[in-house]
């Protein structure tokens, strides 16, 4: 593999670029000094500082709640939309539908955030709902762009396997709804789980859209982090980052173990 080994250098440099900042954060989260630059000794004090930071912890709880609700809504919508795109052939308005589903994937966040906020304001003026803005409006906004991601994942998964199982079930007399729940849904279950996780993560990570559509008293975790970073770096942010990295690494490990339990090689 002469060719492969020559490419190993840029690959290694690329991974160094991606991971060095994260490793530095993990290292400095255990730094004794308040300065975020020079390592003076091992300490776990920033993890305790993080635990006692009520603004950050409260925002984390709120963000987790919003992420769980919005990811679930996004999964419901995204599974239906992905199914429609992959299995319903050429229905009227398919191109427009596909466009509306794919647009949130690339749309700059400032546009999505501003337009949703103006929508919520207009709805409140017209119907009195949603009254004010806060966690509910953030969850609706996140469900909208999360659904686009779920739809992509589900559609890709449905495109991967052929329709013969579904057709066999129909030939044996199963109604379309029954086929969907007994055949299609179990087959795409891993994709649904992946889509839910993706929507959850995106919601947890979103600053811009949440800043537009949230209201007073409902500051999500990224909003609190953003205002903290603008005031200056503190090592408890690194502690938070380290915890997140640990959670993600464990989650991915479990997912890999569940998805490929006895894979040879």
């Amino acid at each position, binding site marked *: 593999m002469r*060719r492969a080994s020559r490419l190993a250098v840029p690959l290694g440099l690329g991974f160094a670029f*991606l991971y060095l900042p994260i490793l530095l954060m993990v290292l400095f989260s255990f730094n004794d000094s308040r300065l975020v*630059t020079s390592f003076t000794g091992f300490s776990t004090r920033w993890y305790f500082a993080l635990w006692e930071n009520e603004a950050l912890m409260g925002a984390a709880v709120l963000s987790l709640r919003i992420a769980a609700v919005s990811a679930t809504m996004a999964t419901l919508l995204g599974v239906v939309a992905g199914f429609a795109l992959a299995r319903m052939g050429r229905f009227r308005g398919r191109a427009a539908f596909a466009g509306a589903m794919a647009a949130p994937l690339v749309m700059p966040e400032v546009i999505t955030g501003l337009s949703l906020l103006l929508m919520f304001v207009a709805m409140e003026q017209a119907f009195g709902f949603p009254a004010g803005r806060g966690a509910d409006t953030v969850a609706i906004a996140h469900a909208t762009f999360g*659904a686009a991601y779920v739809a992509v994942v589900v559609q890709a998964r449905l495109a991967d396997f052929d329709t013969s199982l579904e057709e066999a079930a129909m030939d044996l007399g199963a109604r379309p709804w029954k086929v969907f729940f007994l055949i299609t849904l179990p087959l795409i279950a891993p994709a649904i789980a992946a889509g839910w996780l993706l929507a959850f993560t995106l919601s947890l990570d979103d600053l811009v859209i949440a800043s537009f559509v949230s209201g007073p008293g409902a500051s999500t975790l990224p909003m609190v*982090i953003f205002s903290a970073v603008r005031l200056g770096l503190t090592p408890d942010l690194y502690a*938070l980052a380290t915890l997140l990295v640990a959670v993600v690494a464990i989650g991915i490990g479990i997912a890999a173990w569940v998805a490929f339990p006895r894979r040879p090689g």
Partner: protein
Amino acid sequence: MKGRLGRAIVLALPWSWMALFFVVPFLIVLTIAFAEPSEGLPPYTPLLRWSEEGGPVIQLNLANFRLFLEDPFYLEAGLRSLRVAAISATLCLLIGYPMALAIARAPERWRATLLMLVILPFWTSFLLRITAWIGILQDQGWLNSALMALGVIREPLRLLYTDFALYIGITYCYLPFMVLPLYATLSKLDPALLEAAEDLGARPWRAFLQVTLPLSMPGVVAGFLLVFIPVVGEFVIPELLGGPGAQLIGRVLWTEFFQNRDWPLASALAVVLLMILVAPIALFQARAAREGR
């Protein structure tokens, strides 16, 4: 007929959600872009009013768009955004292409792991990863400390709040969006084509330029668009890493909205941003639709 009804129901749910929370909001942005700012809540004037004679009057305010043409600040922000997005996408391509090629040509049992390593940072907080770069690039930061310890420089270099920091941050955050589509096309290439080229005497470089690169163009275009489009409207990275001169259109929109509370002008900026991006987004969607079939 029954099947028809079922299909209609299946389509109605996502359709109405996307229409309500994605299409209609754009129309509202479009109307408010023609409104005038006011002191009230919401802070803009209604377009449709009832005149004293009793008839409806539509009042369109074009000042917001005229501002974009007349005030060089807004025009420059637009042009700068396009330039930054193009340069960032190119940087991602230059770094991401060799990575994607290396993963595509790695032994099959490693590919999933290597690909996972590219995606993994994406699952950790984007804001906190930007924060790490502040720690690296600031005057007393890790990079300056390391360079001074090595004796390369005496005075700390000004790195944070410069275009250098801006490009590093954007490239760092958007690299996975370039590597994934590139890998998707590169891994589908038939290795026999490359072997044929080499059997016919092509040097590796020539084989790459004449076989691999042209065949991977769909991935290049997809990756370029996936980076370019969101970066044009990027707010967070210019705000946290870029200098005061890095007034990109997303950052200007944010300032007009949150600091100046000029909702109509912010809406007009969103409309302009969308008009800039209509062509690349349409191109992206057309390609996505072709892939999906």
